């Protein structure tokens, strides 16, 4: 089955990004296709490469980058939400790209299930 995921909250402040990550990883593990992960609202902060959590905590930004690399995931940061929050190409973590909200609607049109994670 073909999934897409919408992440509405930033890393660390809410568990949404962690839950979405574990969901996507499990979906891939079960042989499903994950067409796109779209980051909206504060979710755009998941693509900020400068994020440096404490040594003994998970680095969810890096985990997304790694998962993206391993499985060719399309990790899309919403441009309008990103501009408000100061996320631009020069602070973008590996594997993420910035694009428009149309990418979310397109994901909804082309996948069997869109699953939303947020606050």
């Amino acid at each position, binding site marked *: 089955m073909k999934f897409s995921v919408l992440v509405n909250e930033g890393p660390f402040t809410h568990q949404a990004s962690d839950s979405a990550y574990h969901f996507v990883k499990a979906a891939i593990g079960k042989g499903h296709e994950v067409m796109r992960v779209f980051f909206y609202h504060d979710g755009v902060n998941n693509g900020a490469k400068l994020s440096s959590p404490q040594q003994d905590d998970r680095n969810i930004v890096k985990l997304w980058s790694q998962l993206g690399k391993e499985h060719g995931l399309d990790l899309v940061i919403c441009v*309008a939400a990103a501009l408000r929050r100061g996320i631009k190409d020069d602070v973008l973590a590996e594997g993420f790209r910035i694009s428009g*909200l*149309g990418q979310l*609607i397109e994901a*909804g049109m082309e996948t069997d299930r869109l699953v939303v994670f947020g606050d």
Partner: protein
Amino acid sequence: MAEPVDIPEDDEPGEDVKKFMFVNRRAPYGTIYALEGLEMVLITGAFDQDVSVVFMDDGVFQIVKGQDTKAVNMKNFSPTYRALEGYDIDKLYVERESIEARGLTAEDFVVPVKVLSAAELAGLMAEQHVIISA
């Protein structure tokens, strides 16, 4: 943002058309979800999908008349809901239970809405392909 597309009301949805429902449960201004949620709905207008917008719980406050944001120095986006019709997004629903608990009626809103019960909305919700919560 797309140009308004002129599709006759009785046009049958084509094969590529999916049912999108946007569920708005949050008050405006205290958080940005209502504003950014509306931006999502507007974009959908460019894709010729079958779009429903539901206001329930505190989400019904997003469309009440008389919002004046001068003193909080924030953008009053309530007039933008009136632009939805230009994008052929005219399925706007308000949950009866939510407006009754808040002492509101269909007259209190900036856009024409259809008032449905939670049970009726649940039926519509089950028919969707995609449900997006902001």
